[in-house]
């Protein structure tokens, strides 16, 4: 998924006509000051760190300014902060508005209903997880009907809006609905949605675009999300790769089998640290690349657990042997292997020639991997 920073999310909102505070992003204290001096951002203003993690207000990543100098100093204080593991490289400066109420609104997918769902609460401005369920309304939207007038009216009722504000809400919902569909969004969240005078303003914007729709959204291609550098490389090579906190590297094929492998290792007392899902491939090169990637993550031991379907056992064995040839002696790691399924015999034989024994039992092989991970280095 592509999680957009607040200011990028607001660009998307703006494109669809969602009302926003006047504001601009800045990448330096000086830029922040000049945005205020030029009147692009009116005073008083708020300066917000552009990070993906929540809880910025409490975490000191949001400040206020009444003068250009204060804007500069606030931006300076925030830029370069390490906020929950993210380095702050951008701040968003926005006019400070006089807010009478804070509401919550989001659009996402309800998997069980297989319908987009509008989530609403009159308790905005706090984490929605903390709001009591009785204060949250869910309105599913059928893609063939689109957002209907009666759903708009229901939303206004839930949020306690009437008259001009109800009309503003209907307009905003239509904008968000169009954005949700046209941008292939996974999540559009406005929290808080502020009542300002007789209008509504999206004070924050959380936008997640679906990865799978990337082919029709080249405009998001260059946007960083929350992957580690190795995860980013894996993504380019179309390998699912997640770094966790542990020392056993796991290479398996298929999300379910990979997860089950991690589970087994953990249940047996091991600490799986890297998970690498080959997916379905019959290209030995991809397997080689996966192992080279794994070698950069410096696992103590690697557990290879393959059930051959689309991915054949001999393909994996060949890719592994080639990877071992390429990895420098110093970066090598012990390998515990279990390859089953299509072309199992050939794969097992190829591994044996390279000095690696494939143990058919998942129980025994996983135990062996855990044992190796506990040995002194």
């Amino acid at each position, binding site marked *: 998924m592509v999680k957009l920073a607040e200011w990028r999310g607001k660009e998307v909102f703006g494109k669809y006509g969602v009302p926003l505070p006047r504001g601009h992003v800045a990448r330096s204290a000086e830029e922040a000051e000049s945005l205020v001096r030029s009147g692009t951002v009116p005073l008083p203003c708020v300066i917000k760190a552009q990070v993906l993690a929540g809880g910025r207000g409490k975490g000191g990543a949001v400040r206020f300014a009444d003068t250009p100098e204060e804007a500069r100093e606030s931006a300076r204080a925030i830029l370069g902060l390490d906020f929950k593991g993210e380095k702050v490289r951008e701040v968003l400066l926005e006019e400070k508005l006089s807010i009478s109420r804070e509401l919550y609104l989001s659009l996402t*997918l309800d998997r069980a209903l297989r319908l987009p769902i509008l989530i609403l609460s009159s308790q905005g401005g706090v984490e929605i997880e903390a709001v009591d369920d009785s204060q949250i309304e869910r309105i599913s939207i059928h893609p063939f009907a689109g957002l209907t007038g009666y759903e708009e009216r229901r939303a206004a009722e839930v949020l306690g809006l009437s008259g001009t504000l109800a009309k503003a809400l209907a307009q905003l919902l239509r904008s968000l609905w169009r954005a949700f569909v046209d941008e292939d969004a996974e999540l559009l969240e406005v929290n808080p949605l502020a009542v300002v005078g007789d209008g509504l303003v999206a004070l924050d914007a959380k936008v997640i675009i679906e990865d799978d729709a990337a082919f029709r959204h080249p405009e998001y291609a260059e946007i960083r999300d929350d992957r580690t550098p190795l995860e980013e490389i894996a993504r380019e090579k179309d390998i699912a790769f997640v770094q966790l906190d542990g020392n056993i590297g796991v290479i398996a094929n298929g999300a379910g089998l990979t997860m089950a492998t991690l589970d087994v290792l953990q249940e047996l007392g091991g600490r799986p640290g890297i998970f690498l899902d080959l997916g379905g491939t019959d290209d030995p090169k991809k397997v080689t690349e996966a192992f080279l990637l794994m070698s950069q993550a410096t696992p103590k031991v690697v557990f290879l657990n393959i059930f051959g379907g689309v991915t054949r056992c001999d393909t994996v064995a060949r890719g592994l042997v080639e990877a071992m040839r390429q990895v420098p002696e110093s970066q090598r790691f012990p390998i515990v292997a279990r390859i089953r399924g299509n072309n199992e015999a050939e794969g097992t034989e190829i591994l044996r020639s390279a000095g690696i024994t494939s143990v058919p*039992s998942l129980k025994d092989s996983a135990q062996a991997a855990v044992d190796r991970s506990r040995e002194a280095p």
Partner: protein
Amino acid sequence: MTVLVDSDTRVVVQGITGHQGTVHAVQMKAFGTHVVAGVTPGKGGTEVEGVPVFNSVREAVDRTHANASCIFVPAPGAKDALLEAVDAGIRLAVIVTEHIPFHDMLTMYHYARSQGTRIIGPNCPGIAAPGKSKVGIIPNIVFRPGRVGVISRSGTLTYEIVNGIKEHGLGQSTCIGLGGDPVVGTSFVDALPMFEKDPETDLLVLVGEIGGTAEEDAAEYIAHHFSKPVVAYIAGRSAPPGKRMGHAGAIITRGKGTAATKAAALEAAGANVARFPYEIPDMVAEKLAVTGHR
């Protein structure tokens, strides 16, 4: 018909001229499936491994009476392929394709449903009834005819478990890999009634994973409407919250949909939940013995 497929199933392979399409058309034929047609626009009139290729599904159906489709068309064209199958009168569509945007799947699912077509998948290994028919990509070698039904959201983990059942000396009635995407054509709750009704299934193995509430919903159904014994396994107990685990569906959100909540719900519904996947065959054998089957 056992569950959805049987020896009357006549398959058209959409995207048959692609590498995967060709490989699996051959594998399906080896399984005993009637693969009657392939479709690739512009390649009509050719043949792939003895299977005639047509330009459109309509033509394939007209000429070969295909009644099921196996879709390998890459994600950007998958929605179109499914709509074409539906409009041509195909009533079972197995979508192997992965990475289909869920917005597309919403249209696909609701359109297919309104026209009476069942979708399995997307991003799924498909369906197989050993000795009868297979529509999809589950390796032929894991099967053996028998009386254990299997439904799963996973791919290879399903192969692993189905294979374990075979190696234990048991066999399967029908196995369905539903796919792990956020929007699937057929969920556990949709598949359960078919296995309940199926006279060839004595016991059901349900393989779930973290994310969503499909397993909790299944538990609810099992508690009230499912009379056969259920052995379950949930993958992802060790997954940290919020990390994407390969499947778009495998995200733990808001404290719901964890392996623990799923396992607890299934146990409360009377299912036996395995701690390790390799325990499943023993549990199945034991259950069958207790209920007097086999």
